[in-house]
């Protein structure tokens, strides 16, 4: 049969490693399958700093969310959220503003189901299945429309997710489309796998590992990432490595150049 119907469900094959669950395991979480853990062990062998990169990325997410909540942003749309366990957005935002609302979006149906189980009937946090490549479907989703008020600023988080979107899928167009639907004062929070000359070979080995998953990963450098931000404009300190973005004064983490990040504002 050459013309397979488009209704074979994707992403419910737990024999294939999944980025959301791998990340959960990398952060010390327990919501993962053996195949994900095995994948991560292989990745760490090829790129021993991979765990630290993941932690730096997750720490940045927490700092960015707390920072924006501190600026008065009360709504967060986390696309590619994975499983909201350790260092999740609703807890980070809730620390600053208990009224903050968080919409999680992930492409993996099991991650979504798992998120649903973790969130229970949380009044200000919810989850839907969605694909960043189709931003309109996410923005127009009834659940998103119910939880978030698009006449007020929204912080859209694309943390460790745009590196799964190849140029062929027009990541800049996706960000632009999202930007167009948000009011002035909204933000884009972004982190991205980036080339590090010191460990380029290890990075490429690790990237090749991800070709076994439904979501192969690719690196973009600072300029390429900056080119994805329109109509958002990066706030200080611009596009930087994760540990350099408003670092925690009490932290003494080693810099991880493999994760570039930015927080950008729509004016």
């Amino acid at each position, binding site marked *: 049969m050459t013309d397979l119907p488009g209704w074979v469900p994707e992403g*419910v094959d737990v024999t294939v490693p999944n980025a959301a669950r791998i990340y959960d395991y990398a952060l010390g979480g327990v919501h993962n399958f053996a195949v994900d853990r095995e994948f991560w062990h292989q990745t760490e062998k090829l790129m021993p700093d991979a765990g630290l990169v993941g932690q730096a990325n997750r720490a940045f997410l927490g700092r960015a969310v*707390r920072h924006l909540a501190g600026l008065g942003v009360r709504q967060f749309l986390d696309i590619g959220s994975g499983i909201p366990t350790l*260092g999740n957005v609703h*807890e*980070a935002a809730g620390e600053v503003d208990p009224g903050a609302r968080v919409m999680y979006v992930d492409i993996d*149906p099991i991650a979504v*189901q798992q998120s649903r*189980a973790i969130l229970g009937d949380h009044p200000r946090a919810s989850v839907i299945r969605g694909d960043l490549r189709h931003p309109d479907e996410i923005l127009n989703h009834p659940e998103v429309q119910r939880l978030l008020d698009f006449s007020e600023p929204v912080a859209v988080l694309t943390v460790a997710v745009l590196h799964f979107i190849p140029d062929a899928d027009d990541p800049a167009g996706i960000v632009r489309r999202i930007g167009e639907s948000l009011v002035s004062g909204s933000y884009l929070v972004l982190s991205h796998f980036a080339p590090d000359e010191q460990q380029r070979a290890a990075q490429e080995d690790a990237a090749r590992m991800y070709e076994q998953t439904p979501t192969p990963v690719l690196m973009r450098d600072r300029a390429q990432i900056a080119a994805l931000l329109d109509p958002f404009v990066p706030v200080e300190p611009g596009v930087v490595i994760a540990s350099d973005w408003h670092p925690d004064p009490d932290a003494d983490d080693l810099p991880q150049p493999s994760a570039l990040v930015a927080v950008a504002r729509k004016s």
Partner: protein
Amino acid sequence: MTTSPLDDAAGDWLHGLARAGFVSGTRAAARERLRALLTELVAAALADTFDPDRGARVGRLLVAQGMFAPRFAGVTMRVLAERMPLLLDGDSRAVARVPELLGQVASGFAGAEREAALNAAESLSRSEKLTWHRAQLDLQTRLQHALLHESVTDLPNRARLRAYLRELIETAGPDRRLGVCLLWIEEFTDLTKALGHDAGDALLSAVGVRLAATAERGGYFLAHLGDQRFVLVVPDPSGADDVVKAAEQAGRALAQSFDLAGYAPTITTKAGLVEGLMQPGGEARADAGGWLRDASVALGWARADDTAYAVFQTERADRDLYRHRLTAAMPAALERGEFTAHFQPLYRLADHSIAGFEALARWHRANGVLSPVEFIPVAERTGLIARLGRYMLEQSCAQAAAWHRQGHRLVVSVNLSPRQLTDRGLVASVAAVLDRTGLPPEHLQLEITENAALDDHRDILRELAAVGAYLAIDDFGTGYSSLALLPQLPIRGVKLAAEFLRALDHRDIRSTTVLRHTIAFCRDLGITVTGEGIETAAQEQRLRDLGCHLGQGFLFARPDTAAAATRMLPA
């Protein structure tokens, strides 16, 4: 800035944890939490009554605060073993309690971590099952939809339509009526051939959209049976007019040209309509299939008659059905010899002597004998007329040859259908039959109906004449041939159309004048004129007066078997 040993220890602990794994929240908050845990441990060690379980509680709290990476246990043990004794103000009893306390921390940590992991595993397993279940439900829903909808237009398909009709019929009250309009797009096949299947699909899709709007406005149920066939179900019509109205609305909706990849084709529709009482349990159209079958029959009429629509009528359908049955039965009947030739005498009007016989086919069926009007049209439509014609020719010539051998110089007149005139093997088979039966060719007359547009068959008529057979025009005066054509064709006889006899009966002076001149004209050309269907002596008298040579009809004799015909001949 001075810091307490407790702060130092908490900072050291946090530093170790942050190196070992991910610590959520701000470092300041994390240090506060760790400081609180340390304070609790110190208090537990110094307490008058030692409760080692307080250590286990601290271990559980670490996990509850998200610090459950396995490496955190090692870091915690190392830091606490090193720092705790320094925080106990030299209380040796308390210092001695530290190892047990730490053991309890480790137990609490391990227990809580195991609990968290097992809970997560259970939850994950449940999520996986739920996701699969949901995916399967979704698949089932889509499959169900696909089974009940046509893929190109996404409209309800035949199965869905049948289910809909079935439900209507089963729940209908005794007086409830139903209308079904089966629409057919005439140009679909040609457009698909010309523009390709994708364009064909695009056309169907656009047709579906327009018809859906029509259905919505009219309150009709719309289905797509595939390709160029759509159905509108009209609920509760007051009569066939309501279904005609639906067909006309659909026709108007589709009349505007379509935009199809640079082409703007226009289409026309034909419609087969059925309307009537649903009569659950009744005889006619007891089920959904019956309604669709009847609509399809009516569509066939609309297409055959080239009208925009046709409304189903039971009588016409019964006739069609009867013909279909005859069609199906005819080949085997020919094999079994159910067809025979009957003979009706041709009398010389001058002296009432028998000049010959017209051979007429009869079909002997189990339930009676059928005359040619019932089965010849069927035979012509199916092409079986060629076989039947040859068979009749053979039987007729054989009989005529027998009479000839008995000394009767008779003509046998056999009908040729227009279809037979297009048969390239006709002349050869006539010659072969004459040869085989030994009948002199001039004793065979072949009757050709005037409807056959004789002008188109000049060549074959000449060839037949060349074989030696006589040719006669049947039903003369009704068809296409003109008097002017007669001298140009090898025609030896004409049989007057029945209309002329009726004109005689009604004393229609103008028609009688035409008849008189026609007969005179034929006589001048040496063409034998036969009056057919003579039933009264008055008719015979008039024809004789006008100069008609031969007469045939019930007045003289009905067609009968060869044996009976033989008995009519002089001994």
